């Protein structure tokens, strides 16, 4: 099952590429270039085309994708990636364009981008969007820089960003990158923002509160308006982490919840493929008053002409070398145009239905720490199983043995032995039942034969890997 490294296929003199012969008069490079600048050797593989194809095909077989089955990673929204979007993102008239072509050359692409940002603004209830950020975290950073710049511009000094303890790690990390200090506040017993604690934490130094709604427990912060007031009352702004937008499309809009800035993860809600960890897109939306601070250039439409506006004196500046992850944006556009407003709403409904169905079925077997209504995802705790000596990590690995991917584990941090499950709307009742049944089987195994779970996985191409050794004795290249 193991596949050796590509370098181990190397055989001196083998070639996997072909280039046209040089058609200009040949020159001796060292006549031009001082020899100290001429590379002496490069220890790269020498392999044939067949070698490359077989090697990476073999590696692919050691992976699991959405087309392999359910991928219930909570917070990750691993929905089906439509094949048509892949085709569209490969239309040569869309891909074979250079970022420094004039705007006139690429009106088609600009139209697509403009329609996309208009739709995203409408879906999220914001007034203007930038498409530049290339990931969710990049979007957070951009959003927080906008907040920072806004206060700077107004001459107000603000140093803190409040983050709930259930927040994703990127939230505090982004805030720190944007130069803020973090104030973490505990959730209340229902897993929501504790209003009293929030009030205590809030003061004039607070630039922003970062929130995702529904939060990482899948629970809608019902006091959102009051929360917004608390922040706005001290002159702070509300930042929305859009990772969970799949829970509310067509039902509620962050903009209407009084959020001032947000990012959307197009690689979650809008079905663009994760690529094994990227590329993504973290488009950022703002309310009108923050528009001047958006990264430059901003895409503008004027009388049926589209152009990039660089003349934005209050802008935070660029956050990306060009315009963002264009290829991802094209896919998201294709997705929204396919679904339309009805499909978007139906998507949310079924994402929520699927999650609630699973929760109803699984709460007998696992502890459900927060009974609240949850929307598109929910968090179980493995503490009952832990008492038998079986950790959530063990359960996750055992799921792999049954040919299914595991949920997000040990996140959010507020739940012990957390298993965060998000099925998405593209799963159907059979795949949900299969996953539910597998967890029930494992739960039974923990009663009857905990060792088999503790020593999982057994059927994967490698068994449990030694992460400690990896960190202790780093082996990071061949």
């Amino acid at each position, binding site marked *: 099952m193991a596949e050796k490294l590509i370098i181990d296929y190397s055989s001196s003199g083998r070639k996997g590429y072909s280039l046209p012969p040089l058609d200009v008069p040949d020159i001796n490079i060292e006549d031009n270039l001082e020899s100290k600048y001429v590379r002496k050797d490069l220890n*790269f593989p020498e392999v044939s085309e067949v070698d490359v194809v077989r090697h990476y095909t073999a590696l692919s077989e050691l992976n*699991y994708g959405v087309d392999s089955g359910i991928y219930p990673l909570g917070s990750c929204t691993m929905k089906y990636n439509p094949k048509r979007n892949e085709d569209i993102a490969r239309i040569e008239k869309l891909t074979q364009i250079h970022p420094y072509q004039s705007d006139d050359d690429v009106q088609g692409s600009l139209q697509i981008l403009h329609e996309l940002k208009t739709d995203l603004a409408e879906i999220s209830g914001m007034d203007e969007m930038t498409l530049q950020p290339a990931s969710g975290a990049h979007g957070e950073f951009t959003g927080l820089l906008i907040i920072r710049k806004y206060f700077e511009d107004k001459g107000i000094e603000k140093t803190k960003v409040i983050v709930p303890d259930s927040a994703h790690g990127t939230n505090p990390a982004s805030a720190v990158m944007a130069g803020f200090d973090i104030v973490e506040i505990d959730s209340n017993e229902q897993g929501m923002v504790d209003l009293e604690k929030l009030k205590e934490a809030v003061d004039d130094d607070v630039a922003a509160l970062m929130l995702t709604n529904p939060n990482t427990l899948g629970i809608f912060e019902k006091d959102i308006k009051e929360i917004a007031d608390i922040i706005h009352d001290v002159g702070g702004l509300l930042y929305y982490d859009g990772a969970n937008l799949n829970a509310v499309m067509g039902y509620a809009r962050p903009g209407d919840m009084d959020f001032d800035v947000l990012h959307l993860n197009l690689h979650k809600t809008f079905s663009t493929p994760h690529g094994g960890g990227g590329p993504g897109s973290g488009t950022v939306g703002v309310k009108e008053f923050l528009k001047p601070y958006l990264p430059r250039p901003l895409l503008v439409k004027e009388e049926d002409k589209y152009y990039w506006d660089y003349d934005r004196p209050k802008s935070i500046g660029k956050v990306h070398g060009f315009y963002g992850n264009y290829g991802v944006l094209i896919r998201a556009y294709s997705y929204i145009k396919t679904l339309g*407003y009805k499909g978007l709403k139906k998507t949310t409904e079924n994402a929520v239905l699927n999650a609630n169905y699973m929760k109803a079925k699984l709460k007998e077997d696992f502890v459900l720490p927060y009974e609240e209504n949850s929307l598109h995802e929910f968090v179980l705790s493995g503490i009952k199983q832990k008492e038998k000596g079986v950790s959530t990590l063990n359960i996750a690995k055992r799921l792999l043995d049954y040919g299914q991917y595991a949920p997000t584990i040990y996140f959010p941090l507020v739940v012990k032995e957390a298993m965060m499950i998000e099925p998405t709307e593209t799963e159907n009742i059979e795949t949900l039942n299969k996953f539910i049944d597998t967890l029930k089987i494992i739960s039974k195994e923990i009663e009857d034969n905990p060792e088999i779970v503790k020593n999982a996985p057994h059927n994967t191409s490698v*068994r449990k890997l030694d992460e400690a050794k990896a960190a202790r004795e780093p082996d990071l290249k061949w």
Partner: protein
Amino acid sequence: MDYVSNTEQERQQMLKEIGVEAIEDIFDSIPDEVKLNRELDVSEGMSELELKRHINKIADTNISLENYTSFLGGGAYDHYVPSIIDHLISRQEFYTAYTPYQAELSQGTLQVVYEYQSMISELTGMDVANASLLDGSSATAEAILMASRISRNKKVLISSALHPSYREVAKTYGKPKNLDFVEISIEDGVTNLEELEDNLDNDVAAIVVQYPNFYGSIENMEKIKQLKEEYKKVLLIVVANPIALGLLTPPKEFGADIVTGEGQSLGNTINYGGPYLGYLACINDRKFIRQIPGRIAGATVDVDGNRGYVLTLQTREQHIRRERATSNMCTNEALNAAISTIYMATMGKKGMKEVAEQSYKKAHYLADKIDELEDFEVVNTDNFFHEFWVKTKLPVKKVLSSLKEEKILGGIDISRFEEEEGILISVTEKRTKEELDNLVRLLEAM
């Protein structure tokens, strides 16, 4: 059209299990005051056929490199992309997978990252590389932040011959950390090293130069190395085009502590600027490794002693360290890194060299011809790699627009960056002699 599988009947069955009457009931937890009580103002959905027609029609209004000859570069290069790459990364196991959280079911992705890190290390001459960052510009910014953390200094000497957008992004990133950017001016298309020297002191976090630089020139790296070595704390960050490293001496040999840059040229389509990938590599020093932003894959063994791969050194990262993380990096550019890995493997030892050499030779052939023309002058005739800076007495905009009429995208109007003037012309191995001669002929006739 939507991608929901369940039928109405199945939905009813599920609602019953949940114990509610209607789907809307579950949304009761959303207070009325924030509920949207209208439909979204988004168009009606489309069938696949309508969608393809709709988008093709829009796409047709683009002018594309399909039928225009391009001399555009400036950080996005039109190199040949072997067919096999798209076939391989189109395997769903690669492109639909998530970040390899469950390593045992993600060995494909993890091994690809390990191979990527290995080849990036080899190419740059460095010891350790990460799994990718968001693009060349943000990777440069991250490298600067990293250097500042390591040196505990705030002053950054940044060459004005570094890509203008990279400088802008670096400043965007540096500002909240109060980094003090000193831009070193250029002379004849290269960094003014006297000015660099004048600004060097022990408060400097890093010197940042591009190799080859924005104007295509190869900086005097040896001199930079000497300057840098006089100040122990100062780090040297080299922003390098990896394709050039097929021909050029790796930055490590010129004292680079961190090498970073844009990986697009390694097999990624031009795609209007993204998705691309930032790469970052550094020397083998614990202080450095602890400060690397983003993910890193490492080899280890499983319980049976078999080799396998995991994400490692994660205590640098946001999901573990939260506000104390080295960066907020989470999603990176994994699939682009996979593309670049397959590209490097396919081109291999010989191909990497040949692409670089052909690009070099063709660019020099063209530059020599253009330099001979009366109205045109090449600023950096000798010391460039595959991109050069042309000055002309003619109005640049007119030159480029006449070329466009001949289906040629003649280069970048440098004035778009509001610093210098002229045309930046890039030549890759894809350009034919016929295309080069044609360009010369047209310029001559202007």
